[in-house]
């Protein structure tokens, strides 16, 4: 698995373009998150892709060929913090509720909702940690789960620096105001 953070122009269709690239080149996406960044007009994608070594390098090269892609960073080999957020709805009874809440506490998870026969638990952490909580909750009955997939960020002030080759696409403000294809 390789984890990329990809800054893209926030234009309609950009998600399609990125997703289409992975489909077209037959790379498997393990997870993909997208959201706003601190810079107006830029979105950050965190993409976990089933590719290693030179295949990962080619993924990066292909991403750079997309006009709306501004910056690509392979964070797999760099000091980075990784987080996954999950909301887990687990079945409870009067007897099990306290046990489950204790387990959640051990994992530093939070209880978001308490109903007569279920709890909704929020957990943030590395993928392993989230998986660990899911495993211990499974015997009680998982009713529903939603996960964000991984988010990644490099540690320290080197975050904005990149080892990637320079690209004219860093000149975001110079891009024409045309709209890309709608998603």
């Amino acid at each position, binding site marked *: 698995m390789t984890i990329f953070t990809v800054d893209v122009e926030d234009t309609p*269709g950009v998600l*399609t*373009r990125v997703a*289409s690239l992975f489909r*077209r080149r037959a790379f498997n996406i393990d997870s993909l998150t997208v959201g706003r960044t601190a810079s107006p007009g830029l979105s950050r994608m965190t993409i976990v892709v089933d590719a290693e070594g*030179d295949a990962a*390098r*080619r993924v990066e*090269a*292909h991403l*750079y*060929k*997309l*006009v709306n892609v501004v910056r690509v960073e392979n964070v797999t080999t760099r000091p980075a913090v990784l987080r996954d957020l999950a909301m887990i709805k687990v079945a409870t009874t009067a007897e099990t509720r306290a046990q489950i809440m204790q387990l959640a506490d051990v994992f530093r998870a939070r209880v978001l909702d308490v109903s007569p026969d279920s709890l909704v638990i929020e957990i943030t952490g590395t993928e392993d940690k989230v998986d660990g909580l899911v495993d211990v909750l499974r015997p009680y009955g998982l009713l529903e789960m939603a996960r964000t997939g991984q988010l990644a960020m490099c540690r320290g002030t080197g975050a904005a620096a990149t080892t990637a*080759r*320079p*690209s*004219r696409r860093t*000149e975001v403000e*110079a*891009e*024409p*105001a*045309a*709209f*890309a*294809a*709608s998603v």
Partner: protein
Amino acid sequence: MQKTGAQILWESLVREGVDVVFGYPGGAILPAYDAMLDYPIRHVLVRHEQGATHMADGYARATGRVGVAIATSGPGATNMVTGIATAMMDSSPLVCITGQVGSRLIGSDAFQETDITGITLPITKHNYLVTRASDVAPTIAAAFDLARSGRPGPVLIDITKDAQQGSSESGVPADLRRRGRQPDQLPGHDLIDAALKLIGGAERPLILAGHGILLSGASDLVRRFAERADVPVAMTLLGIGGIPASHPLNLGMMGMHGEPWVNQAIQEADLLIAIGMRFDDRVTGNLKTYAPRAKKIHLEIDPAEINKNVPVDVGLVGDVSELVARLLPHVPEGDRSAWRSHIDALKGTAAVRDIQTLPDNGHLYAAHVLHDLWRETGGNAVVVTDVGQHQMWEAQYYHHDAPRSLITSGGLGTMGFALPAAIGAKVARPDAEVWVVVGDGGFQMTLCELATIAQENLDINVAVINNGYLGMVRQWQEFFYERRYAATPLASPDFVTLAEAYGLRGMRVTERAGVRPAVAAARAHRGTVVIDFRVEQEDTVYPMVPAGGDLHRMIRRPPVLAETGADA
């Protein structure tokens, strides 16, 4: 000054140096067509929008300039898809402009609405949907920059009807016009040194010369590089013309229907210097047994091509001209006479192509046609081929000395490409002698463009290699499907009468002796001549590496056929 989006469109095209567009009008592009009359741009009316894209492609390949095609929304746009994919696979710079329904109608399944930006997403370098007149100028500027920069390719601009009709200031922001492209980082000294060291130490090196040499205008540099280091050169199909065929270091074409000595040399080489080529499956055959003894250096503008099919020892990313220019002064002068003699010896036993020494028994073979066409035109024509057997025979028997003198669909293998692409080439280079070499199958896919030729008064000659079959498919059926000729026998109209119906001249040749007189007559005739060459029906392109087969194990022409005088 306020202008309409349609006016700004043409103004922008003029600014980009566009002198001709190939197109077909329709409802959603009508405002643009109305404005066109006021601008100094020639419009070639095509008979099918696929033709417009191939013409723009032929224009681009003949000159290196960006070709422009224009069509309406819906079916006009979808008809362009094949031509766009063809240009994408062969890295040909195109800007395709399509009309789109009004922006408020988008998504409503309006009449002739189609999601052409969605459809062409994987077959363009990029595409744009323009919904405001003020976006037209910057988008055109960006599209041309993108189409021609880096690895060239097609860009599509979909412009809504209201964007064409709306008004905006016509000036283009200067910063954007002159923005330019930051050059990709050229490789550092360590990689250049590693490449030079491999070249210096190689005893059996080969240059694999691809399309990138033509796209980059690196012919002279690569020739000097080859001469200085004394390295023989093998050509890909699209690389043909990059190094003159008559150059002593040029070995000929590699790959599936390449020369046996070239493929054998690749298998025996200790170093491959791949320049502007992408190790397509048609040139490598079985990757597991490909060039097993060779170290590999790959000079390539697209970093995504490095290590894609063949792992290389040194990958140099950048414009091929710049890379070769950096290597050239430092490359050790070499003497590979032993290696060259060895390849010559391979050639001695395998050079089955010298048909001048063949007995002429009256049969007409495609090889005769191409060989005689080459001799009669002095090898100076721009030849535009379609896809199939005739394409391979052309590559084998017509020897190209000049860059951009062979125009052919390689990557996508698009039948129907030749005739419209030749129109684009002729329009781009009116002084060049342009020949179409096309099969009876591919010709019938786009022969409606004969009307375009007639309307534009073009002087293009068409050699139809007519064998009554979809020949290459038939050949595969012969080799790999036990001669079960499913759907390959092909009926055709009388091409002579057909040419005359279009107001052109038609001729028919059925024997070898008629080839050169017919070619001479066609050359002398002012205007287009269609020559129907009735060739041997079940002739086969030899030699051949079966798909995925080992490069050094080629199917050769069996002796029984050799007696008929076809070859060998």
